[in-house]
C-alpha cells in the first residue's frame, strides 16, 4: 500500500516538471507588433463571419428629415431632425441652424448631433429624433431661418485579423432644409396700429360668405363660380 502511494506521488511530481518545462511548449514565435490591432476592438463589432452567417442585407438605409419652424411667437427657431436608418450598426447625424437678417448677417446659430453605435449585428431599422433650438434674440420679424443636415451610416465589423472594417456605408452630404421666414417687418408705408386699447373688449357680429373663384383661360380673368353663406358669427377682440 505504501509503495503504491509513493509511486503515485512520483508520477505527479514528474508530470508537473515536464509540464512546466520549455520542452512542453515547443517553438512559438510571438506575432510581429504591426499585426496586433491598434485598438482592442475584439469583442466589440461583430465579425465578418457573423455577417456571413446571418441574413443581414447589404442594402443599408439612412434618411434624415428636418422640420424647421419658429416657435414662442417667433422668438425661437427650432429645427427637429428625424433620423431613420436600416441595417446599420453605426449612425451619426448632425443638424445646424442659423438665423439670417435681411442684410445677410447671421444673427444666431447653433447645432446638435447624434451618435448611435451598436456593438452587435445591425438591427432592421431604427428611428431617433433630436432638436436644435436657437433664440432670435427677441427679433420677431424679417429673419430667415436656415437649416442644414448631414449624416453617415455604416455596417461595421472586424475581420479575421481583428481589424475594424466598414462593410457598407452611406453618407448624406450637407443638405439644406427649407428656409422658414418670420413675418415681414412693418413697412413705413403700411403703418401698424398703436397699442393702448386699455384691455377694452371690442365685439362685432358679422356674416361670412365663402366664394369659389376660377381662372378663366379664355378671358384671362378670375370668374366667380359659386358662393354660399357660412353663417353669422360674433367675435370679441381685446384691445391691448
Amino acid at each position, binding site marked *: 500500500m505504501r509503495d503504491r502511494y509513493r509511486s503515485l506521488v512520483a508520477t505527479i511530481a514528474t508530470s508537473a516538471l515536464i509540464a512546466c518545462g520549455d520542452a512542453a511548449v515547443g517553438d512559438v514565435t510571438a506575432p510581429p507588433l504591426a499585426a496586433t490591432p491598434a485598438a482592442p476592438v475584439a469583442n466589440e463589432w461583430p465579425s465578418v463571419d457573423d455577417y456571413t452567417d446571418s441574413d443581414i442585407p447589404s442594402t443599408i438605409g439612412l434618411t434624415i428629415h428636418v422640420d424647421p*419652424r*419658429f*416657435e414662442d*411667437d*417667433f422668438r425661437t427657431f427650432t429645427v427637429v431632425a428625424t433620423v431613420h436608418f436600416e441595417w446599420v450598426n453605426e449612425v451619426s447625424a448632425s443638424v445646424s441652424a442659423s438665423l439670417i437678417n435681411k442684410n445677410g448677417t447671421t444673427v444666431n446659430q447653433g447645432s446638435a448631433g447624434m451618435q448611435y453605435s451598436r456593438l452587435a449585428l445591425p438591427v432592421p431599422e431604427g428611428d431617433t429624433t433630436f432638436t436644435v433650438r436657437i433664440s432670435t434674440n427677441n427679433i420677431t*420679424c424679417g429673419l430667415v431661418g436656415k437649416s442644414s443636415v448631414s449624416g453617415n451610416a455604416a455596417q461595421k465589423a472586424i475581420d479575421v485579423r481583428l481589424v475594424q472594417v466598414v462593410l457598407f456605408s452611406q453618407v448624406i452630404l450637407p443638405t439644406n432644409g427649407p428656409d422658414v421666414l*418670420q*413675418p*415681414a417687418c*412693418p*413697412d413705413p*408705408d*403700411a*403703418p*401698424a*396700429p*398703436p*397699442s*393702448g*386699447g*386699455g*384691455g*377694452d*373688449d*371690442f*365685439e*362685432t*357680429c*358679422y*356674416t*361670412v*360668405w*365663402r*366664394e*369659389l*373663384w376660377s*381662372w378663366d383661360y379664355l378671358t384671362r*380673368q*378670375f370668374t366667380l363660380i359659386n*358662393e*354660399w*353663406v*357660412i*353663417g*353669422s*358669427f*360674433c*367675435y*370679441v*377682440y*381685446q*384691445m*391691448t
Partner: protein
Amino acid sequence: MDTSVRYLLAFAAITSAATPLPAQETEPLGAARVTLVAGTAPTRGGRTEVVRRAQRTPQNLVLVDRNATAEDLAAALVMINALRMQYGDTLTSDFRARPETVRPGPTWQQSAYRTWLVTQLVRLRAAPQADVSDLGVVKAVQITLPAPSGGASTTPAGRR
C-alpha cells in the same frame, strides 16, 4: 328630387363649408398686410366689407365706403383677425364678411387705436389712385395688422 332631400343636401353643404380648415394647427400667424380700398362700394351693403382671397393678391382687403367710421373699420379689422384665426393664411377659397353689429368698450372713444383708425381713413381718402387686382383703379393704402394675440377670443359657439 324631393324638396326635403334638397333641403337636407343644402344643409349638409353649408355644414361642411363651415368646418374650420386645419391650416391654423401648423401655421403660426404673423403680422398681416391689409389693403384698404376706397372707391368701390361694398357688394353686400354696409360701410365696410372684408375680402380674403385665396389665389389673388393682395390677399386681405377691406372695402371702405365713403361714410365709414372708425368703428366700421375696427370691425373689419377684427373680422380679419377672426377669419385668420379660424382659417389661417393658406386659403382654398375666398371669404367675404360684412359686419352686422359693433359694440366697442367703454374707453373706446378715447383710445389711441381709434385715433389711429381715423388717421387711416383720412389717409385713404387722400390716397392716389392705384390699380388693384380685379378691383380696377381705386384709392388704396396698406396697413400692417399685428399677429392676433392671446387676447382675442371667439364667443362660445361663435354663432348667433
